[in-house]
């Protein structure tokens, strides 16, 4: 028979801040001024970080044909493009990552055309002046629809 688990209450191990400070700090962390300050910080480092995203985008473009590297680079881009204001870039990269995840679950090979279309859209979005425009929204939706269609096609093919 397995031994029962031992529970160690928070009072019995060292905490990050004292109990008396905890409520005040927690309120301060959730305060609108703190969030505004954080948002400002993201804007301040945004230009530098957007260049970082574009470096990944260049590497993504160079990796066309190698799905493993493509997936890794798309993953990096989705990780922080949106945070630094490249919303469409992040969303398209997210769509590509999800496609790779779903196709892996199915045990199938990614469709080269689907990957290439995403990469092309990411490259354009990352360098567009109006990155988060309505047009970008349309591209994101169209690519999502394409992914759905291709995944259904792959599933049907695997079941037949």
């Amino acid at each position, binding site marked *: 028979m397995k031994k029962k*688990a031992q529970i160690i209450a928070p009072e019995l191990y060292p905490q990050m801040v004292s109990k008396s*400070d*905890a409520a005040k700090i927690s309120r301060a962390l959730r305060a609108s001024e703190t969030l505004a300050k954080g948002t400002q910080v993201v804007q301040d*480092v945004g230009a530098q*970080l957007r260049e970082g995203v574009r470096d990944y985008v260049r590497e993504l473009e160079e990796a066309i044909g190698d799905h493993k590297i493509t997936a890794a680079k798309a*993953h990096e881009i989705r990780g922080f493009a*949106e*945070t630094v204001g490249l919303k469409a870039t992040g969303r398209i990269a997210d769509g590509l990552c999800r496609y790779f995840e779903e196709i892996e679950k199915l045990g199938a090979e990614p469709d080269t055309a689907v990957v290439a279309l995403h990469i092309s859209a990411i490259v354009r979005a990352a360098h567009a002046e109006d990155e988060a425009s309505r047009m970008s929204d349309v591209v994101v939706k169209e690519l999502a629809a394409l992914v759905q269609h291709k995944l259904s096609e792959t599933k049907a093919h695997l079941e037949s």
Partner: protein
Amino acid sequence: MPLSAFEALKVLIVEDNQHMRVLLRSLLNSIGIREIHEAGNGVAALDVLKELKCDLVLSDLAMKPMDGLEFTREIRLSKRSINPFMPIIMITGHTEKHRVEAARDAGVTEFLAKPITPHSLYSRLAEIVERPRAFVRSESYFGPDRRRKALEHYAGPWRRHDDFQDLAIQ
């Protein structure tokens, strides 16, 4: 200023993406945290922790040669660990259910999905400060309590010393 209590904290960022490290450092600076250390992967982070007792770790999941899960297990289970109770926030773009469960089972305190925002990061910090979790030590696990809520109709099995005590209190 309540956040001044953060000035004394030592934080370790474990992340292989340099840009993400810049972002996290900037966000932590903005809430008053001054002493921030960085490592590019789990092995380098363990080296930092040999010399330094940190109060909080923000760690990426996918890194080489040691990823965030293995790093977390080292912190929680290794006899060499300086502070096995250290809060660990796992930050990752890999949000599939099996990865979240793997992070939970490795012993992370909070899980934060990328892309991060000031709001998402500060909320996780507030959660750790406000509601520190009990730790569980069992034959197969050591880390923060993975039961976030009590299941009203849970019929057992009862695996904890205080389970019946809890029931008695209810």
